[in-house]
């Protein structure tokens, strides 16, 4: 695996030698401020514009709204329009229907598999795990044509169940790999004492392994949640553009194609797609960073 070889989270032991000489010198502070400003500017422009009067958006730059904040005709109508007549509201619900199961299912399946790989000997264990490692980097493009053919035969095209299973399978290699790395580090004594207490393999898993693995499970959950919520390709291929099933990225993508110049709709629509991932991300940032550091190969 391409896991970093340096000790990565040794921050507790760190001293400030590396920082000391230039700590908060003025040029450094200014360059950091400039970087943060530049990185935020595009999103800020989008956010501000989404509340502006539709005619004004394409007549004056959004920054003029900051200079003259009171004659802008601020409005929520862009949001109303894009949620209602452009189907962003339904797309939001569809995104929930797709994303939550497509996060829970792979984690559950991967957790059971990782536990078996780490702690229960069975025939073919080694070779199966090597296949999992090999699948880590296989581009999902390799799966699209055959799975689509399979789906049109089974009637799974354009169904939520179909897209859950696809996302589950595509997320599994990374999930199994990360959880295996974590679970195989659990102390052996735990399993021995559980066996002495008469716990079955299933009980050992649900009562001991699972609670102890929460950090790893949480990290992968955020990873997979953001991945599925933001995904366009799998949604386009397996769900298609139909209004009853399309998810938010597809809806926004359609908006770009159909109303490429309707910036009042695009800005509001884009911001709507971002709300959930931004909240999840900012609330659970630490767990997400842990997940990234544990191994990011997707």
């Amino acid at each position, binding site marked *: 695996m391409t896991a970093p070889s340096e000790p990565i989270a040794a921050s507790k032991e760190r001293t400030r030698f590396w920082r000391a000489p230039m700590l908060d010198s003025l040029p450094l502070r200014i360059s950091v401020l400039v970087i943060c400003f530049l990185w935020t500017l595009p999103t800020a422009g989008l956010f501000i514009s989404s509340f502006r009067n539709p005619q004004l958006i394409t007549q004056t*730059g959004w920054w003029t709204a900051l200079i003259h904040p009171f004659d802008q005709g601020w409005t929520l109508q862009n949001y109303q329009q894009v949620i209602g007549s452009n189907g962003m509201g339904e797309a939001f619900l569809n995104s929930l229907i797709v994303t939550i199961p497509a996060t829970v299912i792979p984690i559950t399946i991967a957790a059971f598999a990782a536990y078996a790989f780490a702690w229960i000997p069975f025939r073919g264990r080694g070779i199966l795990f090597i296949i999992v490692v090999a699948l880590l980097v296989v581009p999902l493009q390799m799966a699209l044509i055959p799975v689509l053919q399979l789906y049109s035969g089974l009637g799974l095209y354009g169904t939520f169940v179909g897209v859950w299973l696809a996302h589950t399978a595509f997320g599994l290699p990374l999930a199994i790999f990360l959880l295996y790395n974590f679970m195989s580090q659990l102390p052996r004594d735990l399993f021995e004492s559980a066996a002495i207490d008469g716990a079955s393999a299933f*009980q050992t898993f649900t009562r001991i392994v699972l609670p102890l693995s929460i950090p790893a499970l949480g990290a992968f959950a955020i990873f997979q949640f953001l991945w599925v919520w933001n995904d366009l390709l799998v949604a386009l*291929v397996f769900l298609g553009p139909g209004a009853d099933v399309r998810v938010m990225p597809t809806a926004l993508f359609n908006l*770009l194609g159909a109303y490429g110049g309707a910036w009042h709709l695009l800005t509001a629509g884009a911001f709507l797609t971002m709300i959930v991932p931004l909240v999840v991300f900012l609330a659970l940032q630490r767990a997400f960073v842990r997940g990234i550091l544990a191994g990011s190969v997707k």
Partner: protein
Amino acid sequence: MAVERTQGSGSYGTSRTVLVVSLIGLVLAAIGISILIDKQGGQKLLASVYDLFGNSAGAEALRNGQGDQFFAKLLLVAIALFVGVGGIWLLFTGVSALVERLRPALRDRLLPLVFIAPAVVLLGIYLVYPAVRTIIGSFQDENGAFTLANWASLATPPFLEILRNNVLWLVIGTSGSVGLGLLTAALFDRIRRESLAKIFVFTPLAISLVGATVIWKFVYAWQPASQPQFGLLNAIWTGLPFGFQPIPWATQFPINLPSEMLILIWLQTGFAMVVFSAAIKGVSSEIIEAARLDGANERQLFRKVIVPMIRGTIVTVTTTVAIVTLKIFDIVMSVSGGRNHDDVVAVRMFAEMFQFFNDGRAAALATVLFIAVLPVMIVNLRNFRRQAAM
């Protein structure tokens, strides 16, 4: 090690209840799946509920695609969550409870299979079989006969342009993200409010590539010179005291290529920064102190000590970002669909599948991506074997 259950332990009692409950749950989940697969499942179910309570007018409206569509949708959300979240747990719980009632010898052989079977089956159906099928398909024409035409067509000018674009994405997109990630990690490491500053660069990572493309298309927006520029970049560009004409950054070749790549770099820099930042903090302070005692200045310290020390991490991050750039799809698809000499492999593959209905060529394009990541796969396997050997 095998987790053995001691004979005659008292925990059998719960097992039967668990078994019955989860079997009932599984039947419900199966019904839920049938509702979810039906295109009008939500409406039909709500209509039946209305019928049950004598509200035949409401039921009729729903069946005609009117009435309480929103409630039908919410019902569907509830069913989806029950099936998707509960169903998978019921499946494992039920089957495990069933297997645990068997003879111990048989049970211990079957239980690991229960645990890994879903993963193995899904990986087989969704990744292993399709990968083999796609490689074979790239050598077949639409009748299934052997042909090299799909691969030969990749050597024609339109496809060479696509491959060139992918190489540019690979080189510029990757080096841009990795370079800026390293720069920001090194700079931010030396200020007091480090974690606050990081949030600004890191947050775009939460945004979808389609959303990011909308953000940047707005920055790149172009208007004829006679009209006011509401796109930030053109407003600055035409505002400079050189009399520049506005440029259609996102749509005019060749400037559209770096414009599109900048979207990805903007997004991926945060990822690189976070990983590098953690690695820099892992460099031992004794080494840094020693270098400083030897008279190294800050720039030398960074280039000659820090960078070599975190080389493994740099390789990891570069590989990860490189794989993302190889498969780049959303940005090009959302900016132009690849119509302005900016087409890439993944976008063209999508077009071959859904516009030109040429699955053979689409398979060849997918296989190109597969071949490109093969070296990474081999290195991964080799590293894993070395780890496993220890």
